[in-house]
């Protein structure tokens, strides 16, 4: 069902028009079209957000506009106009000339989008030399100017740096500088902030908005996050499974969406809940987990040769967790939150401090001493694709652990089947392989695997971060239900404060290895005590209107 209220003629004044575009997928894929019959216009000087979940066809649309489709995918119908030029009619040389000069693009992952062997300056200069613009000296001074424009410190030093020296946010600024080099009229940004921390995301969004405004550029901004849409979009296109289900100006779509899918997506966006969670019946007031002055320091290099590098990942963290409660641990990358999760399940050894689990200090235990306790502390991992062995059936994945701890296979199988139903999967999944399942379903398998041991403590490390928002909401609901039913305690590690606000009874904010603030969601989000928490909360996209 294509929603096209009044099929418009080619927008003469549009910076970019897509008309009835259909992209065929090679045979044997899930569906026959990557996108089907999509039409939209990019109004000059405006930001158009294309939003959709993974597999909706939003990125492939961006690649089609750049003329960068993979060989296996072809435009089978419809057209793309940049200004008034139809890009299918352009020969490869003309297309190449258009890229970077008229339309430029920035990508999702700034860590892999820059050539590791070239300096930042050389990569910016390359845009100009590829199009034969300027002399050598002019290009260089222009590159330095651009680095300054995107807000990078010490542009002349930056010019000579290699990408690996830069943080994710800085690299994304370099990408933006590169995209702006020839002052193109159109910028296509493919999820440019998805891989970034929330505070960095806020800065990059401001930068893009700022530059768009200053240069009167037209921007296509691809995202899966309605919070980001609320932050920057003038117009919105909502895509589902290769079709546009709704489009219009941002205000209308956000406030009065008419298509059920849009409504569903908007409803699924996690919002900050300033209210505290109704506590589950605590079975006792004795904490199940008591952590005191936990320390973890990573060392690399050699002390003897003076090349030792020391990273203090966790510096004296202390907290209590009551039975049946959830502690959210939030922080930016490098804050030490994942290290802390791994310390709790003893995947890495601590360098100091105590971890009292049900009254016993597990920190100094050897692997052999701790093994009998392992079933009681389980972990749910981040990547639902990498954390399941692709050559084992779901049944093997679920039963191998309990069998290793002495359960009979028939009993383990019976429990596995019951748990599969419990986490919302068909018991028939038992004999199937991980690749047959979607990301959300795999994460359910991951949860079932952890629950096989009837654990008292679950450590979930970014367990919903790789999932689409609607799936994210379902998994959070599942975890909440399991906690209410089994009374399991949870340490929920996430970089997304909105997610943390939904599932946590208490939230610990980590920065550079320390817990800088700890309290119930009402305190963290409505009345933050530390500057850092305030900064984090302010950076959450799309929450200003709600606050």
């Amino acid at each position, binding site marked *: 069902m294509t929603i096209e209220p009044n099929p418009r003629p080619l927008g003469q004044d549009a910076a970019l028009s897509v008309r009835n575009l259909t992209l065929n997928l090679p045979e044997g894929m899930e569906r026959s079209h990557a996108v089907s019959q999509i039409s939209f216009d990019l109004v000059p000087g405006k930001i158009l957000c294309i939003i959709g979940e993974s597999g909706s066809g939003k990125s492939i649309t961006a690649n089609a506009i*750049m003329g*960068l489709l993979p060989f296996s995918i072809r435009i089978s119908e419809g057209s793309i106009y940049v200004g008034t030029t139809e890009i299918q009619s352009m020969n*490869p040389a003309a297309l*190449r*000339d*258009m*890229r*970077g*000069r008229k339309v*430029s*693009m920035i*990508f999702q*992952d700034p860590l*892999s*989008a*820059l*050539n*590791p*062997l*070239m*300096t930042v300056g050389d990569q910016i200069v*390359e*845009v100009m030399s*590829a*199009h034969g613009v300027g002399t050598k000296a002019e290009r260089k001074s222009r590159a330095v100017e651009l680095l300054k424009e995107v807000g990078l410190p010490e542009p002349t030093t930056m010019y000579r740096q*290699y990408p*690996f*020296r830069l943080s994710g946010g800085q690299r994304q600024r370099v*990408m933006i500088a*590169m995209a702006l080099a020839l002052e193109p009229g159109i910028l296509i940004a493919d999820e440019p902030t998805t891989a970034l921390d929330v505070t960095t995301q806020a800065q990059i969004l401001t930068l893009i908005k700022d530059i768009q405004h200053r240069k009167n550029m037209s921007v296509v901004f691809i995202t899966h996050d309605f919070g980001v849409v609320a932050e920057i979009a003038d117009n919105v296109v909502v895509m589902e499974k290769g079709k546009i289900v709704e489009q219009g100006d941002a205000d209308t779509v956000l406030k009065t969406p008419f298509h059920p899918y849009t409504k569903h997506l908007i409803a699924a966006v996690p919002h900050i809940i300033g209210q505290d969670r109704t506590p589950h019946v605590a079975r006792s007031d004795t904490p199940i987990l008591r952590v005191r002055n936990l320390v973890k320091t990573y060392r690399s290099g*050699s002390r*003897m*040769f*003076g*090349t030792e590098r020391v990273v203090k990942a966790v510096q004296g963290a202390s907290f209590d967790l009551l039975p049946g409660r959830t502690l959210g641990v939030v922080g930016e990358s490098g804050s030490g939150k994942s290290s802390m999760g791994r310390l709790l399940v003893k995947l890495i050894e601590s360098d100091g401090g105590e971890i009292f689990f049900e009254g016993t200090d597990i920190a100094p235990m050897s692997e052999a001493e701790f093994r009998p306790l392992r079933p009681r502390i389980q972990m749910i991992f981040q990547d639902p694709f990498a954390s399941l062995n692709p050559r084992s059936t779901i049944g093997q994945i679920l039963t191998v652990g309990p069998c290793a701890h002495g359960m009979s296979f028939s009993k383990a199988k019976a429990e596995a089947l019951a748990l599969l139903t419990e986490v919302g999967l068909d018991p028939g999944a038992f004999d199937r392989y991980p690749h047959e399942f979607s990301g959300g379903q795999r994460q359910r398998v991951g949860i079932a695997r952890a629950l096989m041991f009837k654990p008292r403590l679950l450590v979930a490390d970014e367990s919903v971060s790789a999932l689409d928002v609607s799936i994210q909401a379902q998994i959070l609901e599942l975890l909440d239900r399991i906690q209410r039913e089994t009374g399991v305690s949870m340490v929920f590690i996430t970089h997304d404060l909105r997610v943390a606000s939904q599932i946590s009874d208490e939230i610990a904010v980590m920065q550079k290895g320390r817990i800088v603030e700890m309290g119930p969601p009402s305190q963290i989000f409505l009345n933050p005590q530390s500057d850092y928490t305030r900064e984090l909360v302010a950076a959450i996209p799309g929450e200003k209107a709600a606050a």
Partner: protein
Amino acid sequence: MLPFLLNRLWQSFILLIIVSIIGFTILNLIPGGPLSQYALDPGMTAADLERLKEQMGLNRPLPIQYLDWAWRMLHGDWGTSYRDGAPVTEVIGRHIFATFILMGSSMAISIAIGTWIGIRGATHRYSLFDYTATVGAMVALSIPTFWFGLVSIYIFALKLGWFPAGNMYTIGDETVLGYLHHLILPSLVLSLVHVAVWSRYMRTATLDVIHQDFVKTARAKGVREKRVLMKHVVGNALLPMITLAGMQLPQLLSGALVTETVFTWPGMGRLFLDSLSYSDYPVVMGLLMLSAILTLLGNLIADIVVSMVDPRIRLA
């Protein structure tokens, strides 16, 4: 960098000692021994043999023999050949040039052609070219070199008479052209295998890079396809190849046993085989140590080159 180098040199030294002990032990486990050659002489009596044994120091316990050899080695004395009484270094010196010419030319050919085939196979993946190259590489790797050698001698030397069937030069004609004429056939036969290996590695390395985001970035910038390929793809794909090249360095001087034998090429491979059959311990040990040193050196050089080329290592 300096601490890294010292560390590596220290490790290499330990490894050399281990290699020499293993080599020395295995060599002495081989039945026969250096005296079996003399024993063939009908005029030799048991007492003569015993005296010889004592002269050569072979009657001493094995550990002592080893320590004696190692001590001399540390002082630069590689020993003398049992076969012709010449110093080991001199014996090796007589053969090393032949091997260097043969292996050097064959490796230069195979690196150039292999790199090209690898890149083209990756950029035209699953094309006719790619399939042909893949099948060709499998054929070259699975058929033994001596077969290629014999077939090429049969066709190009015996039937067509284009090239000589063996040796490094014709006595009486020691011009550069004469050498080259003799070099072509063995060098090409050796290249077959090396091209196959090199092109497979290069194809994989290129494929690893070609789908990376920064290649897409380069295209999105409007960079010409040729430059995208050469600067961004190949530049990065060559990094792992440096390590491979380092690992192949010892072959440059240690020679090719089979090819040298088939083409009666007077190189290190032939020397090794001959010395082994004579139980010429000093020469065999010398060759073993030389190739061990070259292996370690090749790896070290590769690591140094990689760290100079890759800013992530150079500046870290």
